[in-house]
Structures are given as C-alpha cells and as structure tokens.
C-alpha cells in the first residue's frame, strides 16, 4: 500500500513529468497562456493518461511480452494512444456532452503529447504491474496538471510586468519554468 502511494507522489511531485523529465513541454509552454485552457487540458490529460497507462500495461503483459514482440512496443503504444484518444472523444461526445464541451479541442492534441507515450514506456521499463501502471499514469498526469496550472497562473502575472525586451515571449516563460523546476527539486527529499 505504502509503495502504491509512493508511486502517485513520485509521479506527481518528485519526478514531475514536465519540470523534471521534460515530457509534454510543447503543450506546457503553448497552452499555459490561458488559465482556463490549462485546467481543461490538465483534466483531459489525467483522463487519457490513466486510461492509456492501463491499456498499454494490459497490452504489454498479455500480448506483446508473451509473443516476444517486445521491440514493437513503441509502434503499438503510439497507435493505441492515437486510437484511444479518438474513442474517448467519440464516447464523451455521445454520453457526456458537458465534459466533452469542457475538454473540447484539447483531447485530440493529447495524441502528440509525448508525456502519454513516455509514461507508457517508462511503466514497462520499470516493470510495473497493472495497478502500479494505472497509479503511475494517474500520478504523472496530476503532476502535469499541477505544473501547467501553476505556470498559467504565473504567466497571468508576468503579463502585467515590465520585462526587458529580449526576454519577452518565450525566454521569460522558460525562466519561470526553471524557477518552478528548482522549487520542485525540493520534493526530491520527500520519502516515507
């Protein structure tokens, strides 16, 4: 039980997917312009990453590993994620239009989010079983959401500041991310 909690905390805080492992930087920098969009994307990522981790884990344990097709995992996972995002989108559109509206355009964007594929591959690499994989996917996604929402709120403050001209735009955002990353390094002392 303790180790399962540790997987969630490790994924969300200690090995933060964005600030420590640099996965999903594209959307982290791109979408964090707006608070609302960041929160929606975060929710969509939590949703998809948890499901993708579960499906990838099952596929690996019951199809790829027994057949000795270990080396196919990159191709299979990326296709599964792409298909999954499509299915989730269609499913939500039919059954839960409210959620679909909130997540809106952010669902299809997740296919190109390397964090999802990254987590699926890391889970396999670390030899996680099904439950561990799901928790790791969930924890990582929570870490992603935390990071992007925090950056979005920092950027809403930055917008009103007088920043030296060369640093405007991307550089100041990257510097903010650097400072967040330093703060998150503090979590590496966390253990139970």
């Amino acid at each position, binding site marked *: 039980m303790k180790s399962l909690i540790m997987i969630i905390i490790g994924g969300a805080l200690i090995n933060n997917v964005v600030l420590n492992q640099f996965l999903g930087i594209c959307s982290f920098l*791109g979408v964090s312009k707006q608070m609302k969009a960041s929160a929606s994307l975060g929710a969509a990522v939590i949703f998809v990453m948890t499901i993708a981790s579960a499906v990838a884990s099952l596929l690996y344990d019951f199809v790829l590993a027994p057949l000795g097709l270990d080396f*196919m995992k990159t191709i299979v996972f990326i296709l599964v994620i792409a298909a999954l995002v499509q299915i989730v989108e269609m499913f939500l559109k039919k059954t839960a239009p409210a959620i679909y509206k909130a997540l809106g355009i952010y669902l*299809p964007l997740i296919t190109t989010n*390397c964090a999802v594929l990254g987590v699926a591959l890391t889970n396999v690499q670390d030899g996680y079983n099904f439950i561990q994989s799901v928790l790791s996917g969930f924890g990582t996604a929570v870490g992603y959401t935390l990071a992007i929402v925090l950056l979005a709120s920092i950027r809403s403050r930055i917008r009103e500041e007088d920043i030296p*001209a060369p*640093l405007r735009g991307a*550089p100041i955002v990257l510097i903010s991310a650097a400072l967040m990353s330093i703060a998150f390094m503090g979590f590496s002392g966390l253990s139970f």
Partner: protein
Amino acid sequence: MNKYFERLYNGVVKENPTLILMLGMCPTLAVSTRAMNGIGMGLSTTAVLILSNVVISLLRKLIPDEVRLPAYIVVVASLVTVTELLIEAYLPSLYDALGIYIPLIVVNCIILGRAEAYANKHTPGLSLMDGLGMGLGFTLALTLAGLIREVLGNGTAFGAQVLPAGLEPIGIFVQPPGAFLVIAFIIAVMNAIGIKTRQRKLVEEVGCDGNCAGCASRCEKAEEEPAPAQPTATEGGSAE
C-alpha cells in the same frame, strides 16, 4: 543543385527547428546535459528524419489524405524502432545516456512537422536535403545547449576539463532547471542581436498549443506568403 543547398541552409540557419521554430523542445531540454549527448541525440533524430522524409515523399501519392497522419506515425515509429535497436546494439553507452528519449523520437514534433509541411509535397531528393538540413540544425542547437550546460555545470567540454580545477562548477546547470535557463538565455541573446520580426511572432506561439504538425504547416504557409513583413499575423491566433 542550388535549391538543394538552399534546403540545407534553411534547416540549419534560417528555420532552425529548435532555436527559430521552437519545435522538439522535449529532447532539447532533456538530453542537453552533455555536449556528446546532444550530438548523439541530434544525429539519431537526423537519421530518422532523413529516412522518414524520403519514405513519406516516396509514398506521398499513395497515402490517402484522410489517413495521412496515422500513416506517417507508423512510418516514423518503425524507423525509430530500427534506430533504437541499432543504437542499443552498437552504441550501448549512448543508449544508456539517452534512455527513454530514443523511443520518444516518434513524437518529436520536428519529424511529423516536416512530413506534414514539406515531405508530402516535394520530391524525395529535396525531402532528403530538407531532412538533413533540419536534422543538422537540431543537432547544432542541441550540441550548443549541451556544451553550455556541460561547461557551466560540470567544468568540461566534450568530456575534457576546460574550467580551472579550482573553480567550482555551478551544479544547477546540469540539473533540470539549468535546461530551462540555458535555452531561455540562448533565445534571449538571439532576440537581442536580431533576426527579430519573423521569429518574434513564432516564438510567441511557442509549441503552437501543442499541435506540432499543425504548427509546422502554419509556419511553412507563413513562409510562402509574399509579404514576409507580417508572417503568421493572421494565422495561429497568437494574440497574447
């Protein structure tokens, strides 16, 4: 022959994928802890990029438009798997250093971006040069970032000691925060010394809302517009 060299120049300098278009930031930030890692990652990506550009260019008349993205992904993923197995077999130390980032070349925006924006409309020869140019531009940027981080954070360059032994290196530069800082200041320096207009607009569009393929095609369209004075002004909605 001239237009082939133009592709090279375009990839390395004019449209440097990392520094000008800000594509493929994940590997740039992640593996730039050492200059050698930068070269290794850069060249692996270059190999995949050249091959994927050529293959996609050859298949461009066969792949139906509606399913082109999945088709590209399959092509790229196959090539990445081959590359991964080759690196694992012949360069085990590089394999250990790059780790998970080798399979993640699949989702590197540069590759899908070039397939979508260039290879599916041009001949294999031109696409090859485009892949080579873009790949070398990416390698250059990665090596530059890796070199700066290695010198500041470890006191070495390509493994050789360069800072005086008595000088304590600044450890944070080889840690994750250093990656963000170094890239931020490289872009800030570039902003300060020029190449402003076009790049300025693009930089504000960092990551293009996460949809890299769409972003690259947008950039390409902007480039083809007759008036380079205000590219992407109407497209992409970069209003901050």
